[in-house]
């Protein structure tokens, strides 16, 4: 059974369809990459799947049940979300940020129990943030902060992770690290939806890709099917080339396409 399934989603803002008839499914064991040029509607689609944006048409199901029939708290136990801007407003300790991942499981006056502690310890281990726990998040580097936030997401124990451009401003070491965490989450039965701009990471770590443009779904499928030079030329306006090097195949942008407007 799929974790999240959104069908024929349509979101209209000020008379413009930002997302128009897009369907996508998150299934256990898969990392789905959401790619497309700026303003293609990737973030809006993700937020619609989380229930943060109202659908104007179409439907969204969580664990087979209509999303609307879930309470906010129940949803938060199933889906954990990492927005684009993860900067905390206060100089919080990293350990406390990660512990806040358990908020969807705690009632108002309830203190975290051993189950919560266990989930937190596991998340800390998965995100490899043991040596950051005593640091203040506002003093961390971008990559360190992303790992701490990822640990917070993992601590919720939600089967589905949805991350909006998590590696956009990180150094390559951290980019690999973050993507590996997602892959590991999927391997252990979770599902991941991740907005990416780097096509090589998309090719390397995603099981499936959804390419969006102007609110529409252009193509959905395995990375090799989606990342074809003629499709990318049409959508991004760039010329690309696949380069084989030993056991690696890389997609290399070679320049802007001349006739693209």
């Amino acid at each position, binding site marked *: 059974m799929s974790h999240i399934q959104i069908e024929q989603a349509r979101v209209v803002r000020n008379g413009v369809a930002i997302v128009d008839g897009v369907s996508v499914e998150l299934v256990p064991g898969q990392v789905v990459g959401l790619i497309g040029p700026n303003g293609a509607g990737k973030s809006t689609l993700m*937020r619609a799947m*989380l229930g*943060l944006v109202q659908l104007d048409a179409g439907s969204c199901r969580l664990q087979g049940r209509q999303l609307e029939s879930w*309470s*906010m*708290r*129940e*949803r*938060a*136990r199933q*889906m*954990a*979300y990492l*927005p684009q*801007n*993860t900067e*905390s*407003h*206060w*100089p*919080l*300790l990293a350990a*406390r*940020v990660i512990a*806040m991942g358990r*908020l*969807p499981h*705690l009632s*108002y006056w309830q203190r975290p129990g051993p189950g919560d502690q266990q989930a937190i310890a596991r998340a800390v281990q998965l995100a490899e943030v043991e040596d950051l726990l005593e640091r*203040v998040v506002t003093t961390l580097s971008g990559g360190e902060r992303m790992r701490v936030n990822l640990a917070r997401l993992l601590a*919720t124990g939600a089967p589905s992770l949805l991350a909006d451009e998590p590696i956009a401003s990180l150094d390559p070491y951290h980019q690999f690290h973050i993507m590996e965490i997602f892959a590991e989450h999927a391997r252990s039965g979770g599902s991941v939806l991740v907005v990416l701009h780097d096509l090589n990471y998309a090719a390397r770590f995603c099981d499936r890709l959804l390419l969006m443009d102007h609110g529409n779904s252009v193509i959905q499928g395995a990375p090799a099917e989606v990342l074809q030079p003629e499709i990318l030329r049409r959508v991004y306006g760039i010329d690309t080339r696949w380069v084989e090097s030993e056991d690696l195949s890389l997609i290399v942008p070679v320049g802007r396409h001349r006739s693209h407007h």
Partner: protein
Amino acid sequence: MRSKPRWWLLPFLVLALLLAFLLDLLSGPFPLKLSEVFSSGARKGSVDALVLLEIRLPRSILAGLVGACLGLAGAAMQGLLRNPLAGPGLVGVSNCAALGAVITFYFGFAGLAWYLLPLGGLVGAALGVMLIFFLAGREASVLGLILAGVAINAVASSLISLALNFSENPYAMSEIVYWLLGSVADSSIRDVAIAVPFMFAGWLCLLGSGRFLDALSFGEEGAQSMGFNIGRQRAFIIVGVALTVGAAVSVSGNVGFVGLVVPHLIRPLVGAEPGRLLLPSAIAGAVMVLLADAAVQLLSPQQELKLGVVTALVGGPFFLWLVYRMRHEAV
């Protein structure tokens, strides 16, 4: 900034609260002969007992309650607006509450039912919070917040003057100082009684919002995705701030800077967590106002200073330092 939760914070604050309460109770125009009070417990006519029970005790209790309300409301507002400058005084909520109280008091509504005076303060404060929220926006910048606060403060304080001008009362005009600077002098147990139900209800709303404020550290959508119904939770805090600030201002005027300074001093000691900030801020607010009230009585026992003068003398320079530091951090 060092920010780590300190285990000793709560015991320390409780001890400080007890000491500050005792200090405030013992300060006044005359030394209180405690032996007199206790030995003559049965003798109802004793002046010392009368002074202690009817004048000093209500005053100190009110000072503590008002301080707790302002500290708590300041911590909650800073968490809600995710802005360290969002004290109820600076952004104009206190003055709006004073306006509501002034209208109910000077036009005779307060005499109709006991709850109408704090209710007037509550309505004013609620309008103030909503106004600042919609004027400064949810992701309020420091500048936007301050500008909105300046505007709201200016309008509210001039409306207070206008209302006092229209009230047919020879003393009304001179009482503007009380409403703008605040005082707990000569308050009686009646003032405590009318404010307490509103204050307690507000404390419940605000202290119960800790988890939501924690989640709000990650932005509104962050909090929503963590399972919080943001509209309802936000309304809860607005109502809580309106209840606490409205009730506090309607019985003590606008005692400034407490809601700004106190959460700031406490924040590094609780690891900056908005939820953990609430209770210590309430206690520390009470300590601050009690100490200020004791200072008022020690500095000028005869012609009393207004409470807001002392809190502003502490808070003003603190605010300057804060602005200075924020400028340097921003660069």
